[in-house]
């Protein structure tokens, strides 16, 4: 008896979001990134077209970050120069995008002005040709001010900007709408809030194909399974024609994986855990690879060694496309 391959038929696809704009489209990028568009569960090429590969955006900060030495030592002197740092991520690590986090704007830190921050963004835009993701310093008031200024100063570049949240989305969504950028919609590991936030943003008039979902993942060992099941549910919802869950998803892998103790504690302290260098790379790698299996479209990563491993994993998973 012949074996019939069981193929699920889905009603809909994940929505496609385009980030970046070339000169012809009014921007200055040398290429654009398309994410989403998948017509099946992750990498099930036999069931439907996996339209776009998952991309990796490497994290760059405007002032040197408080990261561990394992990561910092791989970047050396460029940590003081966001433009040079971004350039290295693209040229040496083949990052698909740059994820620029403006921690220098924090009112409790350097409290940099929106104008200063916009200049950093401009510098990075001049240094690299890949599309950019820009987020603020996680102070809601400051970020609203910041992102409004940056959205205006970079009009035409079609950035992905963040973060819109349920109790603070109007200002950033308006900035994205007026200056034609895309928005990250973040919800605290809650699919109901995730869906409602997308509804609220779209009711302001921002098209659904300009929204990217940030489900606020947990890192490996610290709640990743909650994010995993929520992302799976969102993907199944998208395929079953739930338009308010059909956006591509972005995951803050670098941040969540590297704040785990396992990615920072030396072998001398925990002999049972083995070599820190390998462990730190794998902690970020495994966080990313697990989330690839539930439909992550954009992985925000830090460690170049982990980036290389995940790039290889994505290549392997796309091989039969």
């Amino acid at each position: 008896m012949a074996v019939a391959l069981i193929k699920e038929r889905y009603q809909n696809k994940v929505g496609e979001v385009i980030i970046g704009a070339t000169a012809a489209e009014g921007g200055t990028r040398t290429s654009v990134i398309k994410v989403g568009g998948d017509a099946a569960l992750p990498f099930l090429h036999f069931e439907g077209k996996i339209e776009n590969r998952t991309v990796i955006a490497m994290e760059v900060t405007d002032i040197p970050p408080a990261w561990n030495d394992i990561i910092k030592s791989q970047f050396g002197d460029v940590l003081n120069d966001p433009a040079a740092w971004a350039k290295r991520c693209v040229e040496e690590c083949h990052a698909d995008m740059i994820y620029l986090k403006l921690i220098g704007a924090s009112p409790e830190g350097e409290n940099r002005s929106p104008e200063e921050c916009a200049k950093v963004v401009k510098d990075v835009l001049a240094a690299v040709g890949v599309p950019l993701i820009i987020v603020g310093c996680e102070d809601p008031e400051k970020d609203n001010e910041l992102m409004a200024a940056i959205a205006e100063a970079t009009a035409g570049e079609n950035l992905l900007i963040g973060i819109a949240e349920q109790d603070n989305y109007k200002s950033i969504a308006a900035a994205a709408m007026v200056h034609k950028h895309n928005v990250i919609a973040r919800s605290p590991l809650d699919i109901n809030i995730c869906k409602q936030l997308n509804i609220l943003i779209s009711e302001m008039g921002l098209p659904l194909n300009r929204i990217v979902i940030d489900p606020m993942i947990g890192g490996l060992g610290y709640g990743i399974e909650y994010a995993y099941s929520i992302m799976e549910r969102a993907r199944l919802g998208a395929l079953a024609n739930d338009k308010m869950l059909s956006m591509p998803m972005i995951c803050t892998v670098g941040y969540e994986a590297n704040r785990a103790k396992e990615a920072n504690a030396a072998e001398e302290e925990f002999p049972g855990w083995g070599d820190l260098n390998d462990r730190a790379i794998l902690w970020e790698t495994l966080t990313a690879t697990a989330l690839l299996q539930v439909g992550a479209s954009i992985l925000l990563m830090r460690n170049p060694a982990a980036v290389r491993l995940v790039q290889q994993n994505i290549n392997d998973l796309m091989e039969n496309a």
Partner: protein
Amino acid sequence: MIIIGERINGMFKDIGDALRNKDAKPIQEWALKQQEGGAHYLDVNSGPAVPKEERPAAYEWMVKVIQEVSEIPLCLDSTNYNAIEAGLKLLKRPGMINSCPAEREKIERVFPMAVQYNAAVIGLTMDNKGIPKDAENRIAFAMELVAAADEFGLPIDELFIDPLILPCNVAQEHAPEVLESIRMVKTLSNPAPKTVLGLSNVSQNALDRHLINRTYLAMAMSAGLDAAIMDANDDDLVDVAATCEILLNKSIYADSYLKVFRQR
């Protein structure tokens, strides 16, 4: 939950008059109004307003004028299969045939036609002897319809079994039997056929029809109902459909779920 708007039916005076006067306006208005209310399909029935021999032309005309204003797929409702076929030929999107009883002669006319025009079929659990009372006999007819789908190559999830609800004031004992029938239909095959009801029948000539309709809709959805031919502009009724989808975990909750349910 698939809502099939019931309003474009010659039994209603305004639609009957529109058919007699070839006045497209009321038909088009109801098409848009039902679409706005939350309908996914529009039922199209000339009723007795058009003489038998003119029905194919009348269905062609109704399909044409509705499709001028709305993209919603149509559910062609007639016992005159020539009229249905005339309408099917003009459909821009795959439609639905309403309906076919479990009678061999009619199955042989309807099922190949459905396959040819890529349409779904509403299959009635009855034959020329009438509607059975208990669930077991309804299911026997449902099985014949399922076998017919297999025989003629109609995808099983394009078959909508209608276990035929009757007015609760004169045929009260039918209502629980219909709920049981809906449950049993879901066990007939894998994938299972879909189920549909002509919902408003349950409250025919009863007092407070809206309350009866929406209560029965919730009960039937809980039993596994997939679709209903119903009043798409009864907002409370559409709210019940949306809420059942949430409580059956068929749609993911969000605070604006009532609104989202009506969006396309």
